[in-house]
């Protein structure tokens, strides 16, 4: 295993919103200028955004870092990509360029890429596409040339354009549950094609972000091939920095026992095959 980057502590600050644009009927991207925070950020981490000064909703909303903004190699800000699904994300959608947004970040761990990896497959289910661009750019910068993004969305309203999902230089495969965009199918069908075609093999770096059902299917699919993957998980969060113990998920420990781990500080990225989901044998 490669050493994970040394992570710096988060900051709590206001960033300036530079963009907040629609990229699909329910999806937006927000660009935030915040050099002090951006300098600490790594692909795979997240920020926790305050969506309302009036405290409605009360809690912050966690969002993956969608992309890091760099000017002449100096980090100046970040993007988040979000689906408008409830009160918090509706508030985000109303924010305008020039306004400030209060956030805590970076939070959580970063991706761990084995130095020998030459090829990578990034698997995104739905709004799990959030962190993909940052991860792909990080991989390309590390010299991993062959990066494939498999992106599965629900339907037309929930699917974002390929150029928003992944940076130039990646291969992008798309499907939707109902076939309204690209091929009809599940994101794991795209992965299946790669496996059969010999375009995904042990030693490749695999990163996945999506719902539990996708994680389970992907794990069961990769296991016979002995292919490891990292999963960026999402649990409901009270704080995002390890103080409320509200975001547990179950992880198989080296001794075979199952223990709760905190999504926000022990993850949100975990080795996929260590996670125990509902319905898995205890």
């Amino acid at each position, binding site marked *: 295993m490669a050493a994970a980057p040394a992570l710096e*502590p*988060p*900051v*709590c600050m206001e960033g300036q919103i530079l963009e907040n644009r629609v990229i699909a009927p329910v999806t937006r991207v927000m660009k935030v200028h915040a050099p002090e925070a951006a300098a600490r950020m790594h692909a795979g981490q997240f920020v926790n955004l*305050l969506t309302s000064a009036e*405290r*409605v*909703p*009360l*809690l*912050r909303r966690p969002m993956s870092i969608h992309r890091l903004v760099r000017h002449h190699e100096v980090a100046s800000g970040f993007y988040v990509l979000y689906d408008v699904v409830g009160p918090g994300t509706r508030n985000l959608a109303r924010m305008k360029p020039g306004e400030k947004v209060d956030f*805590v970040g970076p939070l959580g761990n970063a991706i761990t890429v084995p130095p020998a990896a030459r090829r990578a497959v990034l698997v995104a289910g739905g709004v799990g596409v959030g962190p993909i661009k940052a991860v792909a750019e990080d991989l390309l910068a590390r010299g991993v040339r062959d990066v494939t993004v498999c992106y599965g969305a629900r339907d037309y309203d929930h699917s974002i354009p390929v150029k928003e999902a992944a940076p130039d230089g990646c291969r992008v495969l798309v499907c939707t549950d109902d076939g309204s965009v690209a091929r009809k199918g599940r994101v794991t069908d795209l992965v299946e094609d790669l496996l059969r075609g010999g375009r995904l093999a042990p030693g490749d770096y695999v990163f996945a972000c999506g719902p539990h059902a996708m994680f389970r299917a992907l794990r069961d699919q990769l296991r016979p091939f002995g292919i490891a993957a990292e999963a960026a998980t999402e*649990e*409901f*969060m*009270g*704080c995002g*920095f*390890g*103080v*409320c*113990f*509200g*975001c*547990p*998920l179950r992880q198989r420990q080296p001794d075979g026992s199952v*223990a*709760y781990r905190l999504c926000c500080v022990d993850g949100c990225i975990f080795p996929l095959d260590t996670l125990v989901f509902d319905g898995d044998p205890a």
Partner: protein
Amino acid sequence: MSGGPTGPGAPAGAPGAGPAGGGALDLSLTVGALRLPNPVGTASGTFGKGLEFQPFYDTARLGFVVVKTITTEPRAGNPPPRLVETPGGLLNSIGLANPGVEAYLAEVLPRLRTLGAPLVLNIAGHSVADFEALARRVAREAGIDALELNMSCPNVARGLDYSTDPATAREVLRRVRGATDLPLIAKLSPNVTDIRPIAEAVAEGGADAVSAINTLVGLAIDWRRRRPVLGRGVGGLSGPCIKPVALRLVRQVHRAVGLPVIGIGGIETADDAMEFFLAGASAIQVGTANYYRPRACLEVLEGLPERFAALGARSLADVVGTLEDPPGA
């Protein structure tokens, strides 16, 4: 203890006397033999394992720190989901997740000692004897300034609820009092018909202060699934929505017993803290607000001088319990 029972309605608590005749503001107070530099602390279960707030402010500025409840045995905590947001509040069923007293003292306590603020450990026993043993064990360690007894957590399977039966509450305090010289803070549950007999019982049992309130038991329902939202069913409600309930109970406790009261419940700002002082709290704890405003404790503290000045107050004694009844009440 200083500030001993002074009868109903008297300004209880043990605020520092304040510099005689001087203009400086003195926010200090005493709880038993413990002197606290200021009245702003953290509420149990909202401050993690100690160092998580260091990136946001200098925790040495806090009046005191209360950390998550410790039990004798390790507890994995309740099944997820453990949290659900409700209007103006948060419903939780964490379930006293903690590594157990031995692991806690070995692994977490050394870190807590570096915080620089007076340290209050919070303990919960599953029986009177367990409370006593836990207090005795914890008190052997250096660097602990006081104990808060969690007599009220709604998130563990029903056994004895020490906070609803005065006789049991008195017995817990009496036994723990016999086990340690550390100042004792009894943390009361709001989930009772009348909080006053419980407050009186812990005072008789030897508590140096009372903290109130813990969370209110509540239920969130997902009607489509015909299930509670939380993994364990019920949970404890906290956050701004419980503040009015907390203020009333703090006032009742303050009037009932002559002990310092530590007010807890929905405090986010210095204005909230002032309301609690007037209701009779000598100190306050910030809980849920720490999650969404990591600097909340510091913001409360920094907002106090201006507000004390607005009332012409120079010390806590000038504000604690000074709420006036409405005319004709």
